[in-house]
């Protein structure tokens, strides 16, 4: 279980710096150090089980239906990475504490850094591919935040966006690959997948899976040609670059390759893709590193090159090559983190990272020079540093490889060339910064504080120590990691600086000499390179992004031009097109049930409805008349519900009709009083066509449906209503019980809409016309007496009816929704009759509170069923004997219904009363006389 806490420490700990408060930098740095150190401690608790040959695992079920478990494992490979992530992470936190400028939002920085650390730790500890993918995306997100940390710089924003787009596109491909693996294997658990290598390799979809997974891994690990985001990611603060280039982000890709080698590796497709892409990346990165002027740029291209090296080794696939890849992951992380730290120090102390402007710093900054030179030597692969070991192994593995057949010698030559180039750019970096002539106007610089140097020096010392004592320091860890990747095939490592004269050593010597020449002749080389136009995938990317933005802007403007008519037409036409396809078979339109007979009542209702609909369309330029006509439609719909025995619906329709009429009258007051100018005949014809088509399709659908026997679930509800829900009114039982969750969602939306309206209207001031459309001044009688009296008399009666309809709702027509609307209308009537202030004084209710408490009550009723061990919103009912009233059936659904009632009352009044209130304050002052 401590494994879970190991992961949770940095993930949850990312909140710690935010909570720590702004005391001072030292305090904040210490706080940020707690999570990684805690995680290291917890990791060491798990370690004995791993060393004893076990496989420590944690498994918690999360979403079993999707195959997603919160499953973690610690094997050798995870251990290697976890140590790098946590160890380097801690050092980088210490370093960042000194690096960041005083007034930067450092708490946020540390929080992002810890999140990044936690995400990366999640990748390496995951025992489930889907979980791994989740953390994979989380690293992308965290790195986006970190690269764009200096968001005021456009470079930072662009670099962040580019890395996010490239790596998360890769992430999507990876997800597809993982899902395909899951389909082939039948499980996403890592153990199952790794054991199913045979199945996967035999599958017909194997090439597709490999392509998708490799795309994801290469995008993350900056392999050619997806490498272009990495040099731009150096816009990040240097501690981030140090972390991103050494232990996290780019290492996630090679980690994934190593992780999936048992499942997907060992085919020529895998081996050739990895080794060729790796070789290309190795050379490409090394070549361009030689011509960079920016310190961090050299390091970024060198990272690309070294990642290519690791990919190449993984591709070669021999036991020795894989072990060498793991060793190089460790070595590269150590020297690259140290180098970025020193680049940050140089930038920090001199204010520039440009090689042309730097020089001769060895005298002024002796400690920085020591640190940088050691790490650079490791990067160049010089003895006695750790980089030399992995380079020798690489050369040996290349020489051994049978992968390229007759071309093997050429591959070895190319690897030697890359080694030569890496010596070249390392030399150029070291000499350019620390030796030679400095700027004449150079202000005096000096080493930074010891504690800022300490992390880098520690890493540089490790590079040296691993070089000197590889069998003690590196071999056990690498062997353990290698065992996790290739099991019993793990070679016994024989790491040493001196193996006697051998071919790899000879190549190394030649490479070092060649590197010297390359570094000396670099200006001439650069002049030759400058003759060729530089083609960068980045430009392609930027152009693509711009084109995509333009295209989507064009589409958006076509679809969203601000015309409601356009939106409506598009929506309706889409619906018509979708439904019209099915209706193409006109001859089968009439179903087997035949047509029902007409009666007088139906004809009457239909005539009324048609009259209202046509009338409201015809009179659309006279808004009030149009509304009156619309009201006829509403009434006839209610009558139709009555005719077809749906009293619940009829009552709902009637009360909604009233409420919406009040709403429309309120809104109409604020709309332009003059009707819009007459539109062209062409547009009217177009609208007629759309409306006609839509009506035709809907009518045909209705006709087709009503003349068929449909399999309906009505029978189930009718049968189960009384035994299952304890109510005779099926409609209400469905609302509050069977489909209670839907109702719950609806009242939530209603309350939210009400609250949003409330907020939007809060400070609104609107233009208020002084007279009506004809220009006649408003009447001076504010509150006619008859209306006031009737409204007051009606209130108790309406509340009584509302209570009655609410209480009997479970068994007979009614329920919380209708009752809520009735109450709302009765209260609104008071506002209409006596005005806002008068009613407000007598009814000092906060409607938002009413609505929210209704929602809370409904939630509480739902949650209460958990107390009894039932799912959310399970209802119960019982019969009770009450004095005077007699036997009464009470269902827990009644409480839920009360919540619905309160939410409806609160939301309705919240919207309407506040809309009405908008005018009260700023009314033009034509006052009544009496």
């Amino acid at each position, binding site marked *: 279980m401590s494994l879970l806490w190991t992961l949770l420490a940095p993930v949850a700990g990312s909140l710690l710096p935010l909570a720590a408060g702004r005391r001072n930098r030292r305090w904040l740095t210490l706080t940020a150090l707690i999570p990684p150190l805690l995680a290291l401690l917890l990791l060491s608790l798990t370690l004995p089980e791993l060393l004893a040959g076990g496989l420590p695992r944690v498994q918690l079920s999360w979403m079993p239906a999707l195959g997603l478990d919160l499953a973690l494992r610690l094997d050798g490979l995870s251990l290697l990475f976890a140590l790098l992530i946590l160890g380097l992470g801690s050092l980088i936190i210490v370093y960042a504490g000194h690096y960041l400028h005083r007034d930067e939002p450092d708490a946020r920085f540390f929080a992002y850094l810890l999140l990044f650390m936690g995400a990366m730790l999640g990748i390496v500890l995951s025992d489930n591919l889907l979980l791994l993918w989740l953390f994979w995306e989380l690293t992308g997100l965290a790195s986006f935040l970190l690269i764009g940390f200096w968001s005021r710089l456009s470079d930072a924003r662009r670099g962040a966006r580019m890395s996010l787009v490239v790596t998360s596109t890769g992430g999507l491909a990876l997800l597809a690959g993982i899902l395909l693996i899951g389909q082939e294997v039948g499980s996403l658990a890592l153990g199952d997948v790794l054991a199913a290598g045979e199945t996967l390799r035999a599958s017909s979809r194997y090439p597709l899976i490999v392509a998708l997974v490799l795309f994801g891994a290469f995008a993350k690990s900056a392999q050619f040609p997806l490498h272009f985001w990495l040099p731009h990611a150096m816009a990040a603060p240097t501690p981030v670059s140090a972390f991103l280039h050494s232990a996290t982000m780019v290492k996630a890709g090679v980690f994934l390759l190593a992780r999936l080698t048992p499942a997907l590796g060992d085919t020529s497709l895998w081996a050739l893709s990895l080794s060729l892409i790796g070789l290309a990346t190795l050379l490409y990165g090394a070549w361009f590193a030689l011509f960079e002027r920016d310190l961090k740029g050299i390091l970024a291209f060198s990272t690309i090159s070294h990642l290519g090296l690791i990919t190449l080794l993984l591709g070669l696939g021999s036991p020795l090559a894989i072990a060498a890849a793991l060793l190089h992951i460790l070595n590269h992380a150590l020297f690259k983190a140290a180098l970025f730290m020193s680049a940050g120090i140089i930038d920090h102390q001199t204010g520039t990272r440009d090689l042309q402007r730097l020089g001769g710093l060895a005298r002024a900054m002796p400690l920085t020079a020591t640190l940088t030179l050691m790490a650079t030597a490791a990067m160049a692969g010089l003895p006695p540093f750790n980089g030399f070991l992995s380079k020798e192994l690489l050369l040996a593995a290349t020489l051994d490889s049978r992968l390229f057949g007759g071309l093997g010698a050429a591959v070895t030559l190319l690897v030697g060339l890359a080694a030569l180039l890496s010596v070249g750019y390392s030399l150029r970096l070291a000499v350019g910064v620390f030796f030679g002539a400095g700027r004449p106007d150079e202000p005096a610089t000096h080493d930074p504080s010891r504690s800022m140097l300490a992390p880098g020096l520690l890493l540089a010392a490790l590079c040296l120590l691993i070089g000197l004592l590889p069998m003690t320091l590196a071999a056990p860890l690498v062997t353990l990691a290698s065992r996790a990747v290739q099991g019993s095939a793990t070679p016994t490592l024989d790491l040493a600086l001196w193996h006697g004269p051998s071919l790899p050593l000879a190549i190394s010597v030649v490479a070092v000499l060649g590197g010297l020449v390359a570094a000396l002749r670099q200006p001439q080389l650069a002049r030759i390179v400058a003759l060729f136009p530089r083609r960068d995938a980045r430009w392609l990317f930027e152009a693509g992004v711009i084109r995509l933005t333009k295209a989507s802007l064009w589409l958006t403007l076509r679809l969203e031009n601000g015309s409601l008519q356009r939106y409506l037409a598009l929506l309706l036409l889409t619906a018509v097109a979708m439904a019209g396809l099915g209706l193409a078979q006109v001859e089968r339109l009439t179903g087997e049930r035949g047509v029902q007979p007409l009666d007088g*009542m139906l004809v009457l209702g239909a005539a009324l409805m048609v009259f209202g609909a046509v009338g409201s369309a015809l009179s659309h330029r006279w808004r009030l008349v149009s509304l009156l006509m619309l009201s006829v439609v509403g009434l006839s719909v209610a009558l139709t519900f009555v005719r077809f025995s749906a009293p619940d619906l009829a*009552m709902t329709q009637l009360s909604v009709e009233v409420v919406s009429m009040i709403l429309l009258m*309120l809104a109409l007051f604020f709309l332009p009083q003059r009707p819009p100018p007459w539109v062209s005949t062409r547009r009217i014809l177009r609208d007629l066509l759309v409306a006609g088509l839509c009506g035709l399709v809907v009518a045909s659908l209705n006709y087709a449906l009503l003349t068929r026997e449909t399999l309906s679930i009505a029978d189930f509800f009718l049968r189960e209503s009384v035994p299952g829900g304890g109510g005779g009114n099926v409609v209400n039982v469905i609302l509050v019980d069977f489909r209670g969750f839907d109702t719950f969602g609806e009242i939530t939306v209603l309350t939210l809409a009400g609250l949003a309206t409330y907020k939007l209207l809060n400070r609104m001031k609107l233009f208020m016309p002084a007279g009506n459309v004809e220009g006649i001044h408003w009447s001076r009688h504010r509150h006619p007496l008859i209306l006031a009296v009737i409204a007051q008399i009606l209130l108790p009666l*309406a509340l009584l009816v509302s209570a009655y309809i609410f209480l009997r709702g479970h068994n007979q027509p009614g329920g919380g929704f209708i009752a809520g609307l009735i109450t709302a209308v009765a209260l609104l009537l008071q506002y209409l009759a006596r005005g806002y202030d008068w009613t407000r004084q007598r009814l000092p209710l906060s409607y938002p509170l009413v609505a929210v408490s209704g929602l809370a009550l409904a939630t509480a009723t739902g949650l209460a069923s958990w107390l009894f061990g039932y799912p959310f919103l399970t209802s119960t009912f019982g019969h009770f004997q009450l004095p005077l009233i007699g036997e009464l059936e009470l269902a827990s659904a009644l409480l839920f219904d009360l919540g619905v009632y309160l939410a409806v009352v609160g939301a309705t009044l919240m919207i309407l009363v506040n809309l009405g209130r908008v005018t009260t304050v700023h009314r033009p002052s034509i006052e009544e006389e009496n």
Partner: protein
Amino acid sequence: MLDTALWISLALIVAALAMNVARLARGPDIPDRLLALDTIYVNSIALIVLLGLWLNTKVYFEAAILIAMLGFVSTMAICRYLLRGDIIE
């Protein structure tokens, strides 16, 4: 006997509705149309009650009550709109 009475009242109410609709369509003024709408509401109460009598059921009674109780509120809102513009002051 009841049947005959029902038929006669139905015919009368339908005739009344037809006239309401005609008034609503012709106007000429907003108040005319408003009154027509209000009368349609009143007549539909009668229609619902008749239906209840015809089918011998009480289920529809509440719908009729609702129209009687709330139907006039929308008419009132429109009246206030015509008189004062702003219906909640």
